[in-house]
């Protein structure tokens, strides 16, 4: 299916989301994309967050940053457009949009750490209800630690948005009172997009339910086993 076709299709489905049960990650990417303000600069993390790009309308003028030294990153490259010198942070070949700019790694992370990116979207193992993020290390003894740019994004982007399934495959909540996985950043997440609901996180206040998908806030609270009532 073409990108345009896929987008139209997602539009159609989005209109019928409420009450239909948990979203697919592609549907969720569409929800995230709708919330990105026009003209914003941001970074999409490796994995599911990358799919947000497919749902950004060109006329919205959102400019994507890739930490390996580029603003104005376009869609994944295919065929003759593949250039080994032009990749995203996941090392996949990408394209360049008009108005792009290249820079080196020191400049790229200075931009990130300096608070110039309006948003980033990251995957997560866990997010705490205070906005702590755990997304770089399972903590398992034989896991080779690899952090990449996750910690830099967590403290650098003005709005750190997380996109994840709300439960692990075994059913454990990933929005938790306190992260058990090693942290990536402290109190840095401002919003969590999940297949069951979107949560706003504010310091000290506990998460606020912004939107649900086929589940009531009460049911959500029960499944999450939070020690307080969701608002």
């Amino acid at each position, binding site marked *: 299916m073409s990108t345009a076709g896929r987008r139209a299709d997602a539009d159609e489905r989005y209109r019928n989301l409420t009450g239909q049960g948990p979203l697919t990650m592609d549907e969720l990417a569409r929800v995230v994309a709708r919330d990105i303000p*026009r*003209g*914003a*600069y941001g970074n999409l993390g490796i994995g599911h967050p990358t799919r947000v790009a497919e749902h950004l309308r060109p*006329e919205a*003028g959102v*400019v994507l*940053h890739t930490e390996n030294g580029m*603003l*104005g990153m376009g869609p994944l490259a295919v065929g003759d457009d593949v250039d080994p010198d032009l990749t995203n942070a996941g090392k996949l070949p990408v394209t*360049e949009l*008009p*108005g*792009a*700019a*290249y*820079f080196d790694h020191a400049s790229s992370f*200075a*931009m*990130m*750490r*300096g*608070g*110039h*990116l309006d948003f980033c979207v990251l995957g997560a193992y866990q997010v705490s209800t205070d906005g702590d993020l755990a997304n770089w290390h399972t903590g398992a003894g034989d896991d080779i630690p690899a952090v990449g740019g996750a910690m830099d994004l967590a*403290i*650098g982007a003005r709005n750190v948005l997380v996109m994840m399934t709300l439960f692990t495959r075994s059913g454990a909540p990933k929005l938790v009172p306190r992260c058990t996985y090693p942290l990536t950043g402290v109190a840095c997440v401002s919003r969590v997009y999940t297949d069951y609901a979107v949560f706003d996180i504010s310091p000290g206040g506990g998460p606020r339910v912004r939107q649900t998908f086929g589940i009531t806030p009460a049911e959500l609270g029960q499944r999450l086993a939070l020690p307080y009532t969701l608002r």
Partner: protein
Amino acid sequence: MSRTQFPSTPLEAVAGIPDGATVLVGGFGLAGMPFALIDALIEHGARDLTIVSNNAGNGEVGLAALLRAGRARKVICSFPRQSDSFVFDELYRAGKIELDVVPQGNLAERMRAAGAGIGAFYCPTAVGTPLADGKESRVIDGRTYLLEYPIRGDFALIAASCADELGNLVYRRTARNFGPVMATAAGTVIAQVSDIVPAGSMDPEAVVTPGIYVDRVVRVASHSRLDEVAR
């Protein structure tokens, strides 16, 4: 499209600069000095400003005119005293303006730190000199360093040679000087340029200041004020 705005006059470009603001002003001597924006700032009327710039004005134009109009409370610069800095000299000797002299590299690096999210840094410059007075020092690997803090502007006024529709900037020769680093270090960055070109017509490898750093761009006639000064 992008979040960069393109006001049609320098006066619109400097709108909203309040009394008491800290304003970074680009240029080294006359090269890279944003004359049109400074003239607009004088017309705009904000008072009690703290000006951060390499010099403290030449002749009676640009920064010197701003100082003469009594708009600056304080100047943070590396080299106020020049053959034609009589406006500043007079105000300074009359006790009408505060001066903070900063070594030129520290001026640049402290603004870079502000733009790059660095909280403070240990710098070897000025150790053992009067400019070290009151600064915290630390010996690292046998060498003494001084702790230097970021310099952040509320606004930056800079001059570039050309912008594209996304606010990407390129400069000409040594007129580049403080523009790129100031563009990273202020809440609102305002650039005057000689040309504005469509997105895609600037070489992405040669962009010096990516549009993410640039909030407002205004086109002004090329070098008009410099020619006037040169006469």
